[in-house]
């Protein structure tokens, strides 16, 4: 509750830092990367980084809405693993009937979307209808999905049939004009997300609910439905991310999507969305995702530090990126 009253005011008083902050952090990282390794800015590397950011990125766009509306979802990582597992099982099972081809891939995609929708709906219903803390519901479903995928995979790895994988792979590796599909889908998600957040009733309602749900209710906003929608949207986007993820390695296991939830939430907050809800920005989330991906990329491209310390550097940069952004209100 604490910061909601002061924060957005700081936004107004110092629009500069909260807006420029994340961008500045990103630019700094890019400069550091370019200075450390000449290949850093090569299209191959940029394309790699963007494509691998796409999974978390697409999920983080959905997370932005959930958090803006005052919610949280810890289950996205294991949900992604579960959906990937399910998708692989379904596609492998349908392979003898449908044969390798577009219908089979479409079936897989439909499975992912439906499963994502259903999973998001489930989380949302428990949160909005039974009124349980989002933290608890999604902590619970995180355990459940992670377990389910382990069980589906019999403890091991679920792998897409080899021929099928080759057929499906272009969805990750292929693209248009040298821009691969994950990047395109990510970009489209972001643009739609930004529009939904800033120019659509849904985004406005999310911010209103996150800011003060009583006021939203007294203003005839159907808060249960809007909240539910944020979880459903997030689930759907997890499905979309999974569709991009599966063709990459064609497999899913208990370690798929591990800690994606933390990464997605961190990206959202680095981007300037307020964790307690009421204010969100999708473009900020994108910056957050890119910052997080770039840290790993830069650490891999150089060997300045012991790899054991990668996590420490990552942690420090996350904090710094946010300090850069909030500097203005240090006194507050």
């Amino acid at each position, binding site marked *: 509750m604490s910061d909601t009253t002061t924060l957005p005011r700081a936004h107004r008083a110092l629009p500069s830092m909260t807006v420029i902050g994340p961008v500045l952090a990103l630019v700094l990282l890019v400069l550091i990367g370019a200075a450390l*390794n000449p290949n850093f800015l*090569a299209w191959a590397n940029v394309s790699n980084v963007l494509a691998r950011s796409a999974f978390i990125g697409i999920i983080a766009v959905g997370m932005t809405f959930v958090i803006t509306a005052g919610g949280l979802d810890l289950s996205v990582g294991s949900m992604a693993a579960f959906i990937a597992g399910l998708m692989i099982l379904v596609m492998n099972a349908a392979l003898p009937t449908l044969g390798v081809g577009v219908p089979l891939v479409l079936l897989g995609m439909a499975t992912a979307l439906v499963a994502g929708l259903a999973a998001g709906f489930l989380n949302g219903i428990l949160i909005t209808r039974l009124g349980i803390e989002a933290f608890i519901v999604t902590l619970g479903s995180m355990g459940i999905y992670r377990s389910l995928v*382990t069980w589906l995979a019999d*403890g091991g*790895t679920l792998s897409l049939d080899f021929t099928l994988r080759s057929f499906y792979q272009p969805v990750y590796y292929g693209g248009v004009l040298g821009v691969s599909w994950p990047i395109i889908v990510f970009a489209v998600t972001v643009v739609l997300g930004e529009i939904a957040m800033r120019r659509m009733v849904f985004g406005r309602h999310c911010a209103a609910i996150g800011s003060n749900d009583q006021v939203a209710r007294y203003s005839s906003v159907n808060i249960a439905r809007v909240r539910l929608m944020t979880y459903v949207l997030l689930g759907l986007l997890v499905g979309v991310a999974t569709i991009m993820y599966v063709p990459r*390695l064609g497999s899913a296991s*208990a370690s798929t999507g591990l800690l994606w939830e933390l990464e997605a939430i961190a990206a959202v907050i680095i981007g300037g969305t307020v964790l307690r809800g009421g204010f969100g920005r999708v473009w900020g989330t994108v910056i957050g995702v890119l910052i997080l991906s770039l840290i790993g990329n830069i650490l*891999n491209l150089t060997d300045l530090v012991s790899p054991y310390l990668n996590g420490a550097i990552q942690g420090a940069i996350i904090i710094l990126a946010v300090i850069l952004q909030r500097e203005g209100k240090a006194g507050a």
Partner: protein
Amino acid sequence: QETKVIGVSIPAATHGWAGGMNYFAQAAVERLEQTYPQLDFVLATASDPGKQVNDIEDMVATRHIDALVVLPFESEPLTGPVQAVAQSGAWVTVVDRGLSQEGIEDLYVAGDNSGFGRVSGAFMASQLPEGGKIVALRGIPTTIDNERVAGFESAIEGKDIEVLGMEHGNWNRDDAFTVMQDFLSKFPEIDAVWASDDDMAIGVLAAIEASGREDVKFVLGGAGMKEMVKRTMDADPMIPANVTYPPSMIATAIEVTALGLVSNAPVSGEFIIGSVLVTPQNAEQFYYPDSPF
């Protein structure tokens, strides 16, 4: 006839090899419960050493186990608790990771991590030309990983092989994919990759394939995942070999322990399952198409 209880405590299936090991453990338990009605099994999987100690405590306190088969998550933290089990009079079988004190266990069934690294290193050295450049992926930072890497480094010592870079891929396909992509961006010329694990090898291969780079001649994984053994068997030039580290050793350990309990046969001692180089010539022996791993 008195029922005897065997406790089996293993790490959870958080990566490919552990997944295989979980599979073999469950399969062995199911099979043995059929075979020996007088045996009862408790199988617990743990996600960290602390949890594994809890599991073992519970087995002693509530199930009064007569024997314990344990694959320690880590050696050090499990030594004390397993010792306590041994002192309570139960039979103790330790698998894979030795305890940090000798003489606690009645039976030791293990792979050889530094041997695994040495075999891998020797193979790489034998296949690469003078001045060959390689990159290596490591597992989750643990003692096992350290032993393997040390073994590998000792095997290539003195050989004219340059290790361009080493990063942790955490025995994870996705992490390995990312790390390999970045290695490919960083190093214009890579001759071979020591992926040190078949899960990581899959990620590495995908990254190489996606980059379209031709300079990488081969990738050496490890642990004998069936898909990879198959490709070696089929003489895939990218995967000329594999190094075994069979997850089925847990099944061996459970079976031998069960046998010891029901028959009082002398089964104590050490079984070291050495790491073997799998090549197209001998791959067939190591190919188990029905295993999940």
